[in-house]
């Protein structure tokens, strides 16, 4: 059995444990009531989306330096997982926002930055799909990842400033001890699951490396199509 499955199983068990704790054992939040329980999955997802995005950034630098298929596959894996976690966190955030803020979307700096980060990383996956030559694909994905990641704090700061001119929303801070426990458990749960997903995707990327079926007309340009 592939070694990453141990992490995956651990992650799944932790997720079950943390979710049961958060949904049934922890007390309801002061202002949000039971709706606040969404944070027990939302916050861990958000933490790990950013964490795995950072891993993608580091791997991207490594991929440029090492120029090896394994590093490129690892990059592909972390990019895909980041994109998935970002989609999840945006949906969770919107569902949480409706009862608490009254609207699904509010241009909250963190959520908006996540949306932009999500589109950026999805764009990198689209770039990958449009390139046939594996080496070029590896180099350009890595370059794109570095640029997209460096942009994240800049986007966050600019949206924060942009927003403070209009409204001031404070995101809720949980203080209760009983609330920290499910958060921590689920944070590790999502981390392990995230790593498991990234490794699976990396293996898939490596296995499919030479056999990619193009979903757009091939480029006549040897720069893109690779040398024969």
């Amino acid at each position: 059995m592939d070694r990453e499955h141990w992490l995956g199983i651990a992650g799944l068990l932790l997720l079950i444990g943390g979710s049961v704790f958060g949904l049934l054992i922890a007390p309801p939040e002061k202002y949000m009531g039971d709706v606040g329980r969404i944070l027990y999955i939302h916050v861990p997802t958000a933490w790990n989306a950013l964490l795995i995005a950072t891993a993608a950034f580091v791997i991207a630098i490594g991929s440029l330096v090492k120029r090896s298929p394994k590093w490129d596959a690892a990059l592909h894996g972390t990019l895909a997982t980041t994109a998935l976690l970002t989609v999840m966190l945006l949906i969770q955030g919107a569902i949480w926002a409706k009862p608490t803020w009254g609207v699904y979307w509010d241009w909250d700096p963190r959520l908006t930055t996540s949306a932009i980060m999500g589109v950026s990383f999805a764009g990198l996956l689209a770039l990958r799909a449009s390139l046939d030559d594996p080496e070029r694909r590896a180099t350009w994905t890595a370059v794109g990842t570095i640029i997209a990641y460096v942009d994240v704090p800049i986007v966050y700061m600019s949206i924060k400033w942009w927003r403070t001119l209009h409204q001031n929303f404070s995101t809720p801070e949980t203080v209760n001890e009983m609330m920290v426990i499910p958060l921590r458990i689920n944070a590790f749960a999502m981390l392990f699951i995230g790593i498991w997903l990234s490794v699976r995707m990396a293996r898939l990327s490596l296995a499919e490396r030479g056999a990619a079926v193009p979903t757009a007309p091939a480029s006549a340009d040897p720069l893109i199509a690779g040398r024969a």
Partner: protein
Amino acid sequence: MEGVIVGGWGYVAAAWGISLGLLLGWAVVLNVRLAAARAAAQDEGATDAG
């Protein structure tokens, strides 16, 4: 916001359901595709050797 939001388990269920659904769905797709890719690689290996 004043006061406590009463109920709202529907939202909680939606958030968890969609999250788990996405995770599970993606995990299934990944592993199915990986198994297929590995099987294809094995077939190719057999024809090369055979």
